[in-house]
């Protein structure tokens, strides 16, 4: 590769980095700006002129952030566990087992992807309420515990496993559970990681559904709690930025822990790119 080519490549990479990470950097810089900073200065300043950590302590003073993090953590844990277990089992059934109406069932999962949450949210709330789960974290987690998209991802993951592998196990006398657990699941760990990350991020960032289910403040998830940082009549963008960064940290931590598997999973699943 020639020198110019290399330079060009890095320039393109840098441009994309700025495009993707720019807004995040801006929030980060905003969250450290103090009262002396003109937030709307032209051209925009990235380095705070009056740096302070006061916005972070401001957020922590105003809100029981740890409680919200705990609640969000519980919801995310339930959703991730539900999706890993449920979607893996369902995906296996759809991909490797033969039963009547299998295509129909697969079709149903595809159709489920097309239904926008806004159109069913009230019916869903009535259902959750009638089971007595309104205003509980379980009620928040339950409807997304086995998401259709994840089932389809797992199905694709299982489908690419060569049939010979399973047949060999069958000849050796392995039953369905054994083939599932010892032969197929080890092949799809990457996809399971993808499912884990997707469902974690989804549960962590969801706003509308927890808003509708929860009414007591002690049950609030982080997205609901941080929404309070918006002032009644006008907002301080610095506080909101600090809240955003706080909410982002756990997602970064989860991603950092799982990223090794994540990229492997992206290649193994049906969603290359």
């Amino acid at each position, binding site marked *: 590769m020639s020198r110019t080519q290399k330079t060009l490549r890095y320039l393109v990479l840098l441009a994309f980095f700025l495009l993707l990470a720019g807004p995040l950097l801006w929030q980060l810089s905003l969250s450290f700006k103090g009262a002396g900073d003109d937030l709307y200065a032209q051209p925009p300043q990235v380095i705070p002129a009056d740096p302070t950590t006061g916005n972070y302590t401001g957020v922590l003073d105003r809100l029981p952030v740890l409680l919200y993090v705990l609640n969000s953590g519980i919801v995310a844990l339930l959703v991730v566990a539900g999706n890993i277990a449920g979607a893996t089992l369902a995906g296996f059934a759809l991909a490797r087992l033969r039963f009547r109406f299998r295509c129909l069932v697969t079709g149903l999962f595809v159709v489920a992807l097309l239904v926008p949450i806004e159109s069913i949210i009230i019916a869903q709330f009535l259902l959750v309420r009638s089971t007595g789960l309104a205003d509980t974290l379980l009620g928040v987690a339950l409807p997304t515990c086995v998401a259709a998209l994840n089932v389809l991802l797992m199905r694709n993951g299982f489908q690419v496993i060569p049939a010979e592998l399973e047949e060999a196990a069958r000849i050796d006398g392995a039953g369905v559970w054994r083939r599932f657990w010892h032969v197929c699941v080890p092949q799809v760990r990457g996809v399971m990681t993808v499912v884990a990350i997707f469902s974690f991020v989804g549960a962590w960032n969801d706003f509308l559904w927890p808003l509708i289910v929860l009414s007591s403040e002690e049950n609030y998830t982080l997205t609901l709690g941080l929404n*309070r940082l918006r002032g*009644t009549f006008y907002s301080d963008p610095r506080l909101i930025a600090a809240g955003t960064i706080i909410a982002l940290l756990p997602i970064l931590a989860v991603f950092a822990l799982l990223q090794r598997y994540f990229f492997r999973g992206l290649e193994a699943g049906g969603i290359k790119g």
Partner: protein
Amino acid sequence: MSFRKPARYVLPVVLALALGACGIGGGADDSETTVSGEVKGEITFQTWNLKGNYADYFNGLVTAFQNANPGTTVKWIDQPPEGYQDKLSADAAAGSLPDVVDIGPEAAFTLANAGMLLDLSKTDPEAKASYLPKAWDANAFPSLGGTYAYPWYLNTGPSFFNTAVLQKCGVSKDPLPATFDALFAAGQKMAATCKSDATMVGRLPAIETFGAYGVPLMDQAGTKFTFNDAKAVELVSHYRNLFQAGGMTEETLNKLQTGEVDAFKAGRVGWLPGSSYTLKDLKATAPKVAETVAISPQITNDKPNMYIESLAVNAKSKNVATAVAFAKFATNKENQLAFSKQAAIFPSAAGALDDPYFTTDDGTDEAKLRLESAKAVSEAVVYWPAAFSSKSVDYLREQIALAVLGKKDVQAALDEAVKYADASLPKK
């Protein structure tokens, strides 16, 4: 944030469906005609994003009510700012609407139409005398035949001009534009000198702009919209001419109120129709603009515009008498006055604006702004018709944008917006 920005996702249709399916719907006629029963028992009082700054005030209010009415318990809950209408819709559908709710006219209209709110014109017609007439009228919905909430706090605001921008673009700040004609003329002048670096106007007209321009928005019976008359065409044509002269950027065509405020803070817009807390906001986040800002009365051809929040009573409340008593207590003159001294808002209780707080100038910018706004509030009108849904708001903006871009005839665009808004009115 705008005064109270309508929710992004609104679910009135779903609400209606859900109510129908569960059999808990029913017309407003079902509700009792008088409120009877003792003032005791527990009620829930829901506010919208007021806990952060005014928790002490509300805890005090609740305690005062409980002390005055032994045997009552008021449970105060506060909802986060985002998605408030969705929360109300879902709670209404599930039968878990709080007994007393903080509500804007638009959401009140939706819930009243579903039969969820107490019709005060039947249960408590005398209450009308305790509030500013225009505030009371904001929750009177002729198409539903009733009045559905006790007026609570109001807001309005003067015009803010960025004098540095005006000076740079050759517009005299003495006098500041005080009429729509002067405003558009100044906008043309700015377009000629500054091109699109800085413009006078940062947002397309909204429904309340039409009202302030003198356009009748709805017929008396509240059964059809009328903002497509010659006057309305004249207003949109002003914007169209301004845009074609370069006095508005393409970017502004899609802006909401928050976008307009941001552009003003960044010094790209000369005029901001503000509110009584705009000055505080500018001082906190854009101190440079705050230094050069000049304040003048709201631009209007008719009465000034204002916005309102009200307290509605759940028609299905188990302790209706207590809920009504609390709603009236929270909106009485003393309590409204106390609240408006803490927050930069204005009371809707009759006579509250005569308090020295709103009539005595102590020489500060804030007091001057407060006095001017209070004077405006006393004669202001809530132009935004409650029946004008947030979907219609978006549709109107899109139609105006097409007209301003020259892709559509102004009259045709307005006709279409009226047709759309009419179609979303409740069917008889």
